[in-house]
């Protein structure tokens, strides 16, 4: 029986999140992904396997090469697609607000 991978466990690992960030910008081969990390190639392969098993990544055959890309459908399942993006901006704006409120009170 194939072990069912937990999506949240998959994204709890910093290297796997870094892989998702990389692949988000463009579909990449395993070799191209691995070249971005100091980690040994088999370790990166293992991470790719986990991300693929939990369907966060999808494989696409292009000639003799296999490209990995994000599976948006799955990502939408974990969270509303835009939500983390929105949170990122909200945090940034909160910081702006805090800094300027202190700026105001200094005057």
């Amino acid at each position, binding site marked *: 029986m194939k072990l069912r991978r937990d999506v949240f466990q998959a*994204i*709890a690992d*910093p290297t796997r*999140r*870094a892989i*998702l*960030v990389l692949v*988000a*910008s*463009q579909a990449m081969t395993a070799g191209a992904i691995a070249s971005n990390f100091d980690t040994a190639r088999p370790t990166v392969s293992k991470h790719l396997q986990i991300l693929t098993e939990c369907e966060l990544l999808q494989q696409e055959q292009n000639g003799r090469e296999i490209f990995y890309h*994000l599976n*948006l459908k799955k*990502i939408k399942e974990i*969270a509303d*697609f*835009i*939500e*983390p*993006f*929105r*949170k*990122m*901006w*909200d*945090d*940034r*704006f*909160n*910081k*702006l*607000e805090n*800094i*300027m*409120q202190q*700026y*105001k009170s200094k005057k």
Partner: protein
Amino acid sequence: MELKTKIHAEDGKQEITITREFDLPVELLFKAYAEPEIVEQWMGTKVVKLENRKHGSWQFQTSDAAGKVVFEANGTIHEFVPEQRFTRTFEMENAPFGIQLEFFDFEKLTDNTSKLTMHIVYKSVAARDQMLQIGFAQGLNMAHNRLQTIVDKLK
């Protein structure tokens, strides 16, 4: 808690709109974008150049702890009306994302509150969707880092 930031991204369009209301007078909100030393504080980046005028240009650079440059962005300023609006282009260097056009509108709501509207136009629908994906992944990363910080404090 409800987020104060709203993002509007319609399917099949090559643009997004980000809006946010601030508990700040509009002068201070605008200042946070116009003064290099303040931009550096909240954006967490070094402001190499920020020429707030028509035909002006801007350049930001972020380095990691070891001094290695990890992020570089630049653009041209096309319009700059203090405390009202500015328009600029945005390009992330060494990245395949293309150039985007950004309209920033600053609006006074009350004496102590204001609203920012960022309207970003991308080269194509695909380019926009790609930026949303990257934003998703980065947001995910930041959420985890925050969680990690909280968890570390509990230890």
